[in-house]
């Protein structure tokens, strides 16, 4: 039984798990055909990266990109925190309401209150998201939890939610 091209590519890129990489290495020692394939794939990878080098050289972002990003961030901070520099209490309360609604759907109506009571030393006080993220991740999986948190944050900002499963 021979190793397929995908496995050989993953082995060459160091992307196989330890046991799988061990098995592949042992097979390559004993199978000349697969060893030749692995060598060929290594050559192909170098060729494709060489083909890419010119593209990388020519395709660069604008030089003022970082300044533009920082400008956007400043603008967002100004609109989020208001003229006085202090966080409007309504925004904080709105964030907690959205978090509570999500927790109620998946776990139940008592969850938000329980999270407040649980040892405060277990969570950093500044981050309500940080308090719920482990719970959502544990019971919904990383992808679904990520989507739920993204919805909590972005819908409140008035930014269009990305579809589907956007980070």
């Amino acid at each position, binding site marked *: 039984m021979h190793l397929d091209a995908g496995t050989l590519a993953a082995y060459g890129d160091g992307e196989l798990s330890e046991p799988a990489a061990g098995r592949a290495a042992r097979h390559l020692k004993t199978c000349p055909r697969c060893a030749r394939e692995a060598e060929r794939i290594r050559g192909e990878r170098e060729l*494709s990266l060489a083909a890419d080098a010119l593209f990388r050289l020519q395709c660069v972002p604008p030089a003022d990109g970082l300044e533009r990003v920082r400008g956007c961030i400043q603008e967002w901070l100004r609109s989020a925190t208001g003229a006085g520099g202090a966080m409007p209490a309504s925004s904080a309360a709105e964030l907690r309401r959205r978090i509570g609604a999500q927790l109620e759907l998946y776990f139940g109506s008592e969850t938000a209150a329980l999270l407040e009571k649980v040892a405060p030393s277990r969570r950093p006080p500044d981050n*309500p998201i940080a308090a719920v993220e482990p719970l959502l991740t544990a019971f919904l999986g990383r992808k679904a939890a990520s989507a739920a948190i993204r919805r909590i944050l972005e819908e409140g900002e008035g930014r269009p939610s990305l579809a589907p499963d956007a980070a």
Partner: protein
Amino acid sequence: MTENRPSPEGTYRCADTTELEIVQLYRENAAGLFRYGVVLARNREAAQDAVQEAFLRYFIARNAGRNMESPKAWLFQVVRNLLLDSLKASTTRKEVGLEAAWSRADARPDPESEYRLAEMSRRYWGLLSPRELECFRLRAEGLRYQEIAEVMVLRAGTVGALLARVQRKIREENEASQRAAVFVERELPHAP
């Protein structure tokens, strides 16, 4: 630089720390994100807008206390989703040939580089399907297979198979063009 903001009810963490993180991340990843955006959208402006928006969303999420396991993969995923959404939504696509989208706006390449770019565009990138192109781009930007799988919503095994196919196509195209060059050299009469 922003000053520390008092946080009523402890909602937002210090904006300073997050902004420093953004600067670091930008320096490490902006070029790769931009190249990826250009490959997806075939449009420099759309790519740059998506990169900018991705960093802003990163700031918003981190500022509210969100932790990302792999910030790099997260940013690529957001750029992808932003561009795919806008491609679906737009009625007139300002799509250009990949070689024109690559060109630096601030400096015209020399004629030889331009020729080689156009040649490469025709030879290699025309062979690859959009999925293969995207997967290759992400790998070239240093993402691991698992990260590529998360960004493109694939299995990690499929990533390996796609990359192997890309490399094989490039090799076959290279061999074909070498054979053509040898043929031209041998068979066609030289100019007097």
